[in-house]
């Protein structure tokens, strides 16, 4: 596969959309009038005949030299093959209980974005609201006090990068984004400026806070599943505790409903089966749920945090200093367990890609020589 060559919308459609690899990240949207996001789908509403397009170049599911990206964004010393760059690994939560009550886990993401806005590191934050019908909506926020209103995870993909593309054309100068791993990869590809004469004002992107992500769900299938379990109006939140719990939790006004993980698996967005990244490796800071010996009830109020860049480290330390984040000791072996889970996702992605191509060598958008995959490939 020729990784240097950039192609256009036609190839994007053939190789990503029609191949059902589209993550719905929104990176190809709001660059032009032809690529549009609707519900949790991204669609080409009119054909474009350009040979070289940003849509193709930015898409996280078109081939790219990941090593070059890592070289651009991270200190080589920090790189690990399992979870990408690690400058620091923490267990944290917001010190603000109100913030926590509105957050998915410990509210670390909320606290960090709020702080970044307050300190002027960014002037606009791109996040996702869950929306009344579990269809997330990309939102922008300029007010540090209001960040908490956009807390909690939406397990359906939100075309957040499209919102960045839109914002970057406007008056915002310093943009911070909360991103799933595919979105973080799209931002990283943009930062490479693959089409130098026409970038998308990517220099306005100042901060990427990544979310750990096992997979996202297809909106239609999720709605069917939820509707079968309870009144939609009664649902206050959803969560997927670490894999050993083997269940999705639906929090409702009448208590928690546990849905066996097999039922949830049937709702996974197809494209996620081909995703290699669990920890949002191309972010400044990545945040996920915590594992604690006290069990899930305690752990769900905390986050595990990987700091990857100098900027990330600065922000986390500022949060410590300004008493925005509370830190607790990282339990023994937590990073190892995270690495194992991450490797597991990589392995599954590679296996599924090989099943798709019926070839050991063709990994569609990935390169089998990449240090993150080399060992896994050898392993089978």
């Amino acid at each position, binding site marked *: 596969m020729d990784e240097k060559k950039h192609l256009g919308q036609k190839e994007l459609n053939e190789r990503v959309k029609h191949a059902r690899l589209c993550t719905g990240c929104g990176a190809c949207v709001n660059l032009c*009038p032809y690529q*549009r996001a609707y519900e949790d789908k991204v669609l080409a509403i009119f054909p474009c005949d350009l040979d070289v397009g940003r849509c193709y170049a930015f898409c996280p599911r078109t081939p790219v030299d990941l090593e070059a990206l890592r070289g651009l964004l991270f200190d080589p010393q920090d790189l690990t093959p399992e979870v990408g760059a690690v400058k620091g690994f923490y267990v944290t939560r917001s010190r603000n209980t109100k913030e926590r009550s509105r957050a998915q886990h410990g509210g670390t993401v909320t606290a960090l974005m709020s702080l970044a806005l307050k300190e002027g590191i960014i002037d606009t934050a791109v996040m996702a609201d869950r929306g009344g019908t579990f269809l997330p909506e990309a939102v922008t926020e300029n007010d540090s006090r209001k960040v908490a209103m956009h807390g909690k995870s939406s397990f359906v993909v939100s075309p957040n990068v499209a919102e960045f593309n839109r914002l970057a054309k406007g008056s915002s100068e310093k943009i911070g984004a909360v991103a799933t791993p595919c979105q973080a990869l799209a931002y990283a590809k943009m930062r490479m400026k693959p089409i130098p004469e*026409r970038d998308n004002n990517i220099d306005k992107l100042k901060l990427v806070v990544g979310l750990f992500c096992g997979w996202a769900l297809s909106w239609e299938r999720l709605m069917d599943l939820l509707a079968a379990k309870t009144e939609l109006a009664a649902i206050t939140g959803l969560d997927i505790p670490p894999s050993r719990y083997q269940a999705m939790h639906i929090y409702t006004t009448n208590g928690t409903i546990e849905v066996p993980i097999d039922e949830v698996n049937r709702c996974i967005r197809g494209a996620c089966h081909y995703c290699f990244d669990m920890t949002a490796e191309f972010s400044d800071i990545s945040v996920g749920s915590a594992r604690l010996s006290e069990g899930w009830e305690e752990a769900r109020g905390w986050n595990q945090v990987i700091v990857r860049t100098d900027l990330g480290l600065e922000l986390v330390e500022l949060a410590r200093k300004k008493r925005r984040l509370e830190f607790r000791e990282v339990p023994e072996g937590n990073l190892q367990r995270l690495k194992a889970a991450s490797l597991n996702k990589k392995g599954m992605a590679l296996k599924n890609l090989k099943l798709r191509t019926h070839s050991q060598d063709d990994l569609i958008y990935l390169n089998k020589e990449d240090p993150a995959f080399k060992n896994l490939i050898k392993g089978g």
Partner: protein
Amino acid sequence: MSNLLDTNEGAHYLYMGNDAIVRGALEGGVSVAAGYPGTPSSEIIEQLARISDRRSLYVEWATNEKIATEIAAAASFAGLRSICTMKQNGVHVASDFLLHLTGTGVRGGMVVVVCEDPGALSSQNEADARYFAKMLEVPLLEPGDFQEAKDMMKWALELSEELKTFVIFRSVTRMSHASGNVVIGELPENEPRAYFQYKGPLLDFLTGPMVTGPGVVAYARTVQQGRLKRAVSLFEQSRFNIYAGPERPELLIITSSACYLYSKEAIHTLNLGDRVGLLKLGTTWPLPEGLVRKHLAAAQKVLVVEEPQDFMEENIKILAADAAGEVGVKTFYGKKSGHVPTSGELNPDIIMNTLKGILGIQYEPVPQEYATKAFQSMFKSPGRELTFCPGCPHRASFLSLHNALALDNRDGFVCGDVGCYGIGVLPAGFSTVKTNFSMGSGLGLATGFGKLTKFGMNQPVVAVCGDSTFFHAVMPALVDAVHHQSDVTLVVLDNSGTAMTGFQPHPGLAVDAMGETAPSIDIEAVCRAIGADVASSDPFDVERTEKTLLGMLKKKGAKVVILRQICALSPEKRGKKKYQMSVREDVCIGENCGCNRMCTRILRCPGIYWDTARKVSRIDEVICAGCGVCASVCPSGAIQKAEVA
């Protein structure tokens, strides 16, 4: 001022065919005229409406052709003379009523004026309405020139009143829309009183109730057939059937209508006056049998020239077979033999070719060199693509429809209808329209599609119709859709007028054909009353329209979206720009990634063009209508709109 009301008997005027028809109707004492717009018939009602204040006339644009015939029949029942007008396919709409009207006959003279469009220059069909005359058993008259158009129209009203049956008067585009010299006749000073007599006995259609029903059909048909027999005897003497040529021609041409003009010209150009005889019939059903027999007997070869179908040819062949003993066996040329094209419009060149073939003449109608040049230039001249006018609200409506269906992503489609919006099938309408049939059938079909969910069909179905079409034939389909809970979205493209045929008012407007204020029927209220879920939007607000459509596509049941914006060509808007448009060259991204010519490659309004030299889009000041839609699709904000004070 129009000279249609001139009382200067004997004066010569240059009349368009439809004006000649109007003058003929006036000379024939018409009191009531109703029609439904349709090219090439529309000017007749328009002209009558224009002069309705200076003459005792009632003129209306009816909701559809069937109602137009009913309006005319009511006048006739009340003793007045009346006409109703329509284009060829309109007769199909009206035919149910007309069929029943032959059961009672009429009282005051009533003429159904049908203007046909052979070659379908502005139609979706090439229907030949002459067959109705035979099917319905009523007389059919066809003028062969402009003078005849006037004279024959007057006579048609008299004939109808005399025979007590309505008469079909048929014109064609080249007759209705061309102009010729007409000597005008007397304009009667009539002030007839309308009164409907019904006190007489049943089955006395002159004084009794006008009703037909089981048990009386055979009687009624016998009466009607008797009227036709009388028509034949009148037609034998008619001055509208004329013959020119030698006593025993080598070839006899039998023709009618505009084909008479073509044949005459062909004979003249080929200088065949002493070899070819030309029998022009004005009364084409029932045939003047004696007259036709006489001419058949005089020639061995017979060519029938007519358009679009072989109506006369068949009838003449039947007549010839019946009279074979008397007239001998003939060799017929025409559509059956392949000497005359079986579709499309005819012209003198075609007839010349036909004559050359039959008579073995060498003649090049057009010098070869010229023909070659003309042929070549056809390919050189930039062919104008069929598209919506600049500023047309339909362009914006179809863009939103396209986008909504594309985003909805379930292979949705649009059932089109008859009107400008038929262009929706082409790239100019973003190729959204996938079916297009007769008036009102867009929603009828869509309603049918919308019931196929039980067979696994989940493609969203949209029907579009114009405001005039809504009243014409869509309302019954909407009742069907609501009552049967079909999953369908009707989009009413409300441009406040019957735009395609020239802005005739319709029931949705607060004015009638005669220019008087009339209560307007609110489409939105009608749809709500029928029980549909209704929303409306301004199609120029592209974002909101798309959102509204997307929302409706998701909903179950029958929904209506009214997209309201006045037609760019309407008298209120014409020449008045809302915005002064301009393109900022420094901002236009043009062919680059990020735009790739959205305005000139996709939207394709004729008011904006691609400057290939400078590689930017530009506004064509002369063509641009100033609607501002291109500015709302431009991704870079290069297209600027400034409100015109």
